[in-house]
Every structure is written in C-alpha cells, then in structure tokens.
C-alpha cells in the first residue's frame, strides 16, 4: 500500500508493484465482453466456484498433476490468490499454531498468519555462493536449519514456487526435503504457485502436491491474474483434497460467499481455449513465459551495464538486484529505515525509477540481511522498458 502511492506519479517509470502493463491476450478480453451481454451471467453463481470454471480448472490441473480432481469438492474459487491464502489460513490455522514462512516472502503471509492468532516462524533462503549471486538458484534453504524449525506446534509451511521476489524455482530435491519434513511432522503445506507458468529455459515447475504423501496435506493456490495477465480480475483458486478444501469453503461462505460471475465465465472460456492447446507451443501458458524470458534478459543486461548486480530469476516476473555496488551514500537520511527503503525512495525522487525494497519481504530479524537488494518487476511493455533503459544508461553519467 505504502509504495503504490509513491509510484502513482506518471512521470516515474514504475517497475515496483507486480502488475503487468502489457495487454492481456485479446481472446481473454473478448470472452469477457461476450459474457457481459449474457443476462443471467450478471447474477449470482455457485458460491464455491462457477460451474464452468471449476470444470475447466479441474481439466487443466488433472492434466498437470496426473490425478483426478473433483471440480465440486477439490476446488474453491476465491478473490485472487490473495483470497485463497486468506481462506486457507483462516480455515486451517489456529491460535497458538506455528507456521513456517520462507524469507524473503510475499508480504501478506505474515499478517495473515498473525490475524489467525498463530506465530510465524521464519527461515531465510541463503546465498550459497556467499556474496556472489548470479542466479535465483543460488538461494537455498539449509536442510538442517529447516528441520530445526519444525516442532509439534507446526501446523503448516508456506511454500512459494516460483518464488516472489527472488524468482527461485524449487527443484524436485528441494521440494522433497520439505515434503519429508511435512510428512514426518504431519504438517500441512500451503503452496503458493501463482507464477507456475512463468518458468524459464532449463527449469521445470514441480507441484509439491504431486510428491508421494503430499496431496492429502497440501493446498495449491493459483491465480488468473498471473496466468492471463489480468491482475484486475482478482480470481484465484485453491486445489486440494476434499477434507481440507471443505474447510476453506466454510470460510468462503462466511466471508464473501461468491466471486463475480462474468469474470469466472470468461476465465472458464479462456481456460477452455488454452486447455485444447496444451500440447502446442502457442498455448498462452508457454508463450507468455517465452515473451517474459526475453524481457528478463533485456532487464538483466541493462542493470549490469549500469553497474548493478541482478540475480537472474529462473521463474516469475521479478528480479532482485544488489545495489550496494553503487555505493550510494544515504547515511544522512533517517537511519532507522533499512538501506533498501532509503535507496528506493532516493531512486524514485532522483532517477524517476521505482522498485520495491527487499526488506519489505522479510521478518524483523532478516531485514538487515537483505537490505542491499531491491526488486524490479519486468512484466512491462517495451516502451516502459525503453524508458527504464534511458534512466539506467544515464545513471552513471549523473552519479559520476
């Protein structure tokens, strides 16, 4: 909320908040326009998810997961993945529970866990190359450290892969380590996979729910906003076993009851189109990822040329950047704030370029560890990246 206000100024090149300024695919927009003309689609639909949408989701995910998914009992449609996170945490997390959160983390996990009366237990991703990080794959969990975080109070672990903000795509081996601990301690796994389609060459998105012993204890969360570049539709979903999903449905029926009908119908149509071409490289799930990979590469190059150190993400549409190399002296600014906050504010005012400070994604103990990083979003149209290029190319000229 804080940073969106600052960057609302149109003279600032906004690479901060994670929202595309590219257009959604035209067939997605067309489907919604078509739907708006159908009278009954302007009224309430089924609370737990519009029938055609849950059917489409079950088809797509049955294919991906290789298991039967019942559209009525194994799926809940929510207001964005955000709503799925909220419903899952309210449904399954109790006062006094502990929930493991991997740092850096999408910032809503912590307040949501607290709102449920539970205690967040943090564990940081650590740069295994100590200082020299070129890739998101360099950031790993220490298995012994992770194991230490689990105890009898641990109700769940929140996993986010592909990861925001680092862009890490957890490997099968890494997921197995987490899965083993979940099974050993009978812990739930809340798997935020909103960027599931955005994985770059050489990487594969693996669903932890497909590992042995995990389906029955995992809620997998997805997002239309990220899948189809329509963040303003605010539709997401939770998929899991009936005995868990039924509790999310209870929360849903007591919080907002139904999600908007026309958006759900349009999304169902869009999924229908892409489901049919899941074997075809033109499927939007794959074509978007290809489009973003070249933007990623361009962004990385521009940042490197400006003397910054980007961490190349294996997935997602964010890139974190080490800004310490620039040695911008901000010691005269309010020093209660972490360096990255001060850097971003300085960058917005003096360079007209916005990003998000990484310490926004950390628990209190880890903020200092990540304060030399800021996060850029690269799901932006060419003209936005062009404008960013101008700023970055002129960067050194001004600071010199």
């Amino acid at each position, binding site marked *: *909320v804080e940073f*969106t206000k600052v960057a609302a100024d149109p003279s600032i090149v906004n690479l901060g908040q994670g*929202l*595309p*300024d590219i*257009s*959604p695919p035209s067939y997605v*927009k067309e489907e*919604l*326009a078509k739907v*708006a003309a159908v*009278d009954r*689609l*302007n*009224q*309430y*639909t*089924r*609370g737990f998810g519009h029938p055609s949408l849950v059917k489409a989701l079950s088809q797509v995910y049955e294919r991906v997961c290789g298991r039967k998914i019942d559209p009525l009992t194994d799926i809940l449609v929510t*207001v*964005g993945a*955000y*709503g799925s996170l*909220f419903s899952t945490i*309210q*449904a*399954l*997390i*109790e*006062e006094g529970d502990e929930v493991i959160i991997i740092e850096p983390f999408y910032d*809503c996990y912590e*307040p*949501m866990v607290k*709102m*449920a009366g539970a205690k967040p237990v943090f564990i940081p991703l650590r740069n295994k190359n100590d200082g020299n990080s070129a890739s998101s794959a360099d950031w790993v969990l220490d298995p012994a450290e992770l194991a230490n975080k689990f105890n009898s109070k641990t109700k769940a672990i929140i996993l986010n892969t592909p990861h925001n903000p680092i862009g890490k795509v957890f490997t099968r081996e890494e997921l197995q380590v987490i899965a083993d601990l979940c*099974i050993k301690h*009978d812990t*739930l796994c809340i798997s935020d996979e909103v960027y599931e389609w955005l994985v770059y060459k050489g990487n594969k998105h693996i669903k932890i729910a497909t590992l042995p012993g995990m389906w*029955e*204890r995992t809620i997998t969360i997805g997002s239309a906003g990220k899948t189809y*570049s*329509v*963040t*303003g*539709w*605010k*539709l997401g979903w939770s998929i899991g076993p009936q*005995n868990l999903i039924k*509790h999310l449905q*209870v929360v849903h*029926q*007591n*919080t*907002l*009851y*139904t999600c*908007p*009908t*026309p*958006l759900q119908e349009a999304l169902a149509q869009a999924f229908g189109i892409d489901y049919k071409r899941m074997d075809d490289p033109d499927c939007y799930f794959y074509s978007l990822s290809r489009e973003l990979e070249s933007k990623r590469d361009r962004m990385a190059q521009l940042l490197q040329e400006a003397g910054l150190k980007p961490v190349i993400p294996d997935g997602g549409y964010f890139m974190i950047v080490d800004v310490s190399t620039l040695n911008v002296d901000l010691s005269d600014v309010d020093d209660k704030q972490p360096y990255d906050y001060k850097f971003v504010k300085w960058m917005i005012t003096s360079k007209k370029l916005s990003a998000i400070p990484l310490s926004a994604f950390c628990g209190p103990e880890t903020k200092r560890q990540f304060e030399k990083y800021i996060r850029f979003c690269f799901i932006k149209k060419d003209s936005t990246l062009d404008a960013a290029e101008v700023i970055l190319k002129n960067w050194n000229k001004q600071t010199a």
Partner: protein
Amino acid sequence: QTHLLSLSLQAKMSRPVQARRLEGIDKNIWVEFVKLAATYSTVNLGQGFPDFPPPDFLKEAFVRALSGENHMLHQYTRAFGHPPLVKILAQFFGKLLGRDLDPMTNVMVTVGAYQALFCCFQAFVDDGDEVIIIEPFFDCYEPMVKMAGGMPVFVPLRPKAPKDGKLMSSADWQLDPAELASKFSDRTKAIVLNSPNNPLGKVFSRGELEVIADLCVKYDVLCISDEVYEWLVYDGKEHIRIASLQGMWDRTVIIGSAGKTFSATGWKVGWTVGPNRLLQHLCTVHQNSVYHCATAAQEAVAQGFQRELKLYGKPESYFVQLPKELQQKRDWLVQSLDAVGMKPIIPEGTYFLVADISEFKSDVPDVPDSDEPYDSRFAKWMVKNKGLAAIPLSAFYCGAHKNNYNHFIRFCFAKEEATLKAANDILQKWKREKTNP
C-alpha cells in the same frame, strides 16, 4: 504404501485439522436450497436475485470498460476502491447525508455487501463482545459474529395482528422498545440494522430508528447498517439513513450494494461509508483478506452512479424506475398468493415478501419431534412437488428460535412478468387440486 503411511499419521493427529473459529458456522442454508432449486424448480422465487438483466446503461459501461483502449482496467486498481468509484460514491452519499465526504477516507469498496459485513465484524468484534441482531435476519450475520469470536444477542420483530380483513404489512412487525433496551449492556459492541429488512421487507420508520439510535448513544454502541435495499421502497415510503440521526454518524458504518442497486448481483461490488475512525479498521481487514476488488466492474458501477447523480429524482432515474416496476410485481405476487390462501405480509421495501402458509399445512403433515423446522420441510416439499422454490422463514432465525415463526416462507419477486405468471399458474393449480382432490 503411501495410503497406509497417511492413515497411521492421521491416527497420530489428535486434534482436528480445521481451526476452531469454524465451529458452528459450517452449515449454510443457501448451499442446500440453491441446489434444490437448481435440481427441481421450474419457477425459482427462492434465492434473492433478479431474473431480469441489469439496465442497458450499466451493461454498456461494463463492455466499454473491457474493450476500451485502456487495458489497464484489467489490472489492479486502488485497493480500498477504484478512484472513479469512491469519488462518485462520496459525492452521491455526501449529498444524501448532507455531509462532505472524503472519497479516500470515508468510503471503502468491497466484494459485495457480504464482504463489507465480514470486514465490519472482523474489525470491531472481539472475543466476548456482544452484537445485537434483529430477527428475522439475513442469515450470514450470526456466523460472521461467531467467527469473530463474538456473541450474538437476538431480539425479535413481533407481529401485531392486522386490522380485521386486512392483509398484514411488514410495518406491523415491530420491536418492543423495552425488550430492545434490555438487550443492551456494557458488553454490547454493536447492533446490526437492516433496513429495508430482508426477509420481511420492513422499512424502519424515523421513530423506530430513533429508539435504536438513543440506545446506541446511551451505551456507546456501534451500528452496522445494512442498507443494500435502500432504493427499493414502495408506496411513497422514505428510506431513512440512521447515520443521519443525531449522534449516529460517528458510530455507524453504512453498507451498500451495486448488486441490489443496479440488479447485477453477480458483479459483487459493495461499499462501506462512514467516519475514518471506523473505516480505517475496515481497511486493515480488507488489505489482509482480499486486498483488491476487481477493477472493470468498479469502473462500470462508477459510470452507473454518475448517470444516476445527473438524473437524481427525475423519472428516468433507475432509482425511480426500478422501485416503480418492483412495486407492481410485488402487488401481482401479493394478489396471487392471497387468491390461493397463502397470506402475504405486504413488504414496504426490498424485493422479498413473506407469506403465511398455514392454510396449506395439510399438504405437508407435521412430524413431531422433528429436528427440522416445519417451514423448511414445507419449502423442500414444495420445490420437489410443485416446482416452486421459496425459502423458509426459519432460515432467518437463530437455532433456538427457529420454531417461533415456522409457518412462513419467503418469496423473491424481482422476476420477469413471465416468471410471476408461471408462479401464479402453479399456485392456482395447487389450490384447485386442494379444493377438488
């Protein structure tokens, strides 16, 4: 092998997987009745939604928003409300309340009025707080209070016998002021007011609102004012906003709904209006539960309100035309029901009416010691055997009071003429079958 593993682990888990806050709130009447209507009904007067479309100007605004040049309407907007929408709502309601409203601090947009209610209970109700709920009530109030750890305290509207020969009106259902006062204590955090009232259609008079307001002021209690049917008032009645009464603005959150205002329930756009000292807490809940509401629908609703502000009070205003149309439909349904012996309670507002089905009791024999209230069994029998869907009034009472008024069912009359005629046919046929078995 995996199966055995998980079985043994399930045996280990001594506590339930779900959180305690879900206790007692898992049942939901709509899940059951919506399914029944979908399966059996030929005429659905049950769930409250129009079977006619939203007005053309609104649909056009939506299509414009979606296919326009600005594709950023497909992306996130401001979390607490799309700027054009909160601006027009502040203007519109500022005019109605005679106040200067700040769109950024006095208005918050929600996913339907339902989510506005949720934010209110989560924001204001703590463990042990009491919340007064007037019966019959829109059923979600009770589980929402419980989910927030609060204690619902019920006070009923009581029917006064109508004058000889006349049909009862929703105005005949009233609170007993002394009984109401007895429900207030220092544990009372809030009272939920719903006017016009679903299911009865009661439109609280100024006098009745003053009684409530006096108690709120005396006990320093908040008022959650669910006014989603604010435009649907008939017979020249006036919808009075309790927030406009002395001492009430500062302690009231007003809830509204685009779904009901513009006959577009499937858009799920609602709002709250109130003082910043209250709304700031709603914002906290909102940013930690849903964060943003869908953009395009907000844009369209904003345009809808802009049109209505220009036409306010004029005959072409949708807020003038819709109640006019609905009053006529109300009168048709009243006539249909009266003609066959179901006794309708004439609603002063909303698009619901409640009818006494005592004369039809012979069709559905009483089952002594049944857990299920009579009207619920009746409504289920009716949809299965007559294809006519309605909702039992007991759905709108707390568990302990479900049998207090168990011979009424609620009909929704926001339906096309053809639907109401079809309902009439079913009722007429039914009556004939009763007289000539």
